[in-house]
């Protein structure tokens, strides 16, 4: 049986905007985890400041990526693969955690990172590994040629 495939709706010269945006939250949230770990071992406040900017920028870019991804996914109609629902659900949870993590990191001093902030940063990255895999699998299995 031939698989139904879809192609993202929102693109620039054939390149999906969603695909261009997703590296930012991935890199930012991973970076925030690393600067959190460094801060918790130092504690030099500048590392916590790096974490805060990475988390804030990661969240903004993540929300933008989510919006374009959602449009592409809804526009796929009957070709919508089930794996996309898991990719989306996991990432919504991940972004909510990242939002809460931004609030935790806005606290002044040590407790902005240790223990809650650091814990959330690690969970965010672990969740991202799973949702990233789901996203890639969807791309390589369910996304076809541009119409």
């Amino acid at each position, binding site marked *: 049986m031939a698989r139904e495939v879809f192609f993202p709706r929102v693109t620039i010269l054939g390149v999906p905007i969603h695909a261009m945006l997703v590296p930012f939250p991935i890199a930012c949230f991973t970076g925030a985890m690393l600067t959190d770990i460094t801060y918790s071992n130092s*504690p*030099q*406040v*500048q590392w916590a*400041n790096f974490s*805060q*900017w990475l988390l*804030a920028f990661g969240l903004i870019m993540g929300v933008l990526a989510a919006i374009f991804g959602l449009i592409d996914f809804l526009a796929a109609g009957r070709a919508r693969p089930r794996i996309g629902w898991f990719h989306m*659900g996991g990432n*919504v*949870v991940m972004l*909510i955690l990242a*939002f*809460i993590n*931004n*609030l*935790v990191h*806005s*606290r*002044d*001093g*040590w*407790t*902005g990172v*240790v223990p*809650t902030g650091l814990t959330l940063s690690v969970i965010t990255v672990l969740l991202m590994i799973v949702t990233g895999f789901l996203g890639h699998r969807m791309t390589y299995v369910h996304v076809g040629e541009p119409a």
Partner: protein
Amino acid sequence: MTWRALLASAGLALALAACSKPHFGPDKQYGANPPLPDPTQYLFPPMGIAKPIGWGNAMPAVPAGFTITPFATDLKTPRRVLALPNGDVLVVEGDSPATEPTLRPKDVVFNLVIGQAHGPTKAANDVLLLRDTNGDGKADQKSVLVANLFSPFGIAVAGGKLYVAETDGIKEWDFTPGQTSVSGPGRLLTALPGPPIDHHWTKDIAVSPDGTKLYAGVGSNSNIVERGLEAEKGRARILEVELPSGAVRPFATGLRNPNGLTFNPDTGQLWAVVNERDELGNNLVPDYLTSVKDGAFYGWPWSYYGQHVDIRVMPRNPDKVRAAIPPDYSLSSHVAPLGLAFAPAGWPANYAKGAFIGEHGSWDRTVFNGYEVAFVPFAGGKPSGPKQHFLTGFVKDGKARGRPVGVGFGPDNALYVADDLGNVVWRIVPTGTAPKT
């Protein structure tokens, strides 16, 4: 996709749960040994911003037996008042240096929120001389004594000198009360820690009764060392400055943001009011009034109210915590005390020799606190009863009509209050006091 809404509301519920601690009234925290609730770490710290509306034709309310008049209006953020022996009143108008760099995303959001509390008036950076020549309780002469200072705040006149504390140093001019001008740009007595960060920028000063020393308050560079401990070198303390040499030594440390430096005329002791740390809760940490003891350490940043450790400061410092002493008198949490003056013996018996405190008013609290001139009775040079509301009405319907800062008594037994939002200096006298001559 209702599960998505569910998740969102779960996140919100988690955030709100942190804010739902029961309050107790600020009056429970007046005096020595105030109850201190457990510190809370918030996702959204409690806040309450009073938007400015100004006074219109209204005036603050005084207790029965007192009369209030607007001594001077249409000022530009008056912060400090100093009444001279000849009846002239010096007023310091000062503006934040606004040099603190944006370090975190929080600073961006925070400045937007706090900015709502600021009035429309552009602040000046001058020392004004106000004179009431016809004795009607209103100044009819106004001149600029010193212009274009760098975020001035503290002011003192003693021993033939005028001292003004700019945010980065104390300057002096030859001055005798009665003069209406000073000459030259002033001589730098001593430099003080200033910009670029200068988080708490107000430098208040007082000259000792014997005229040999000047004391200067230097506030911390942060709420709770979020700019690093290195940024706090030489800060959160009261300095002793030798006169006339300008030599400096730390007099008392661990005072987060000390203002209202005033000598109690009864005992000759130095007193101050101190703004304590934020974001631990509606009722943490109480701001306080205290006598300032030579060599004492009052806790900031490692602990508050004696030896209550602040877990937000890393690395910890158990030695400093052990050395910390509690202050004398809690004014309750987040009232933002900035001014202090002791009533002369000529005031009505209930008030004579007690402390009047200009409380600028809270932001880090869901219910407003402060926004008044409060009174603490004194006996034998020590606080002797609960704090009372003296000058009130600064908040109406959740909006700020004014905010009191500096307070000071004149030779005419009048209490002068600088209102930096209403842009007024208020004059309060016991009713029946003979008009000025």
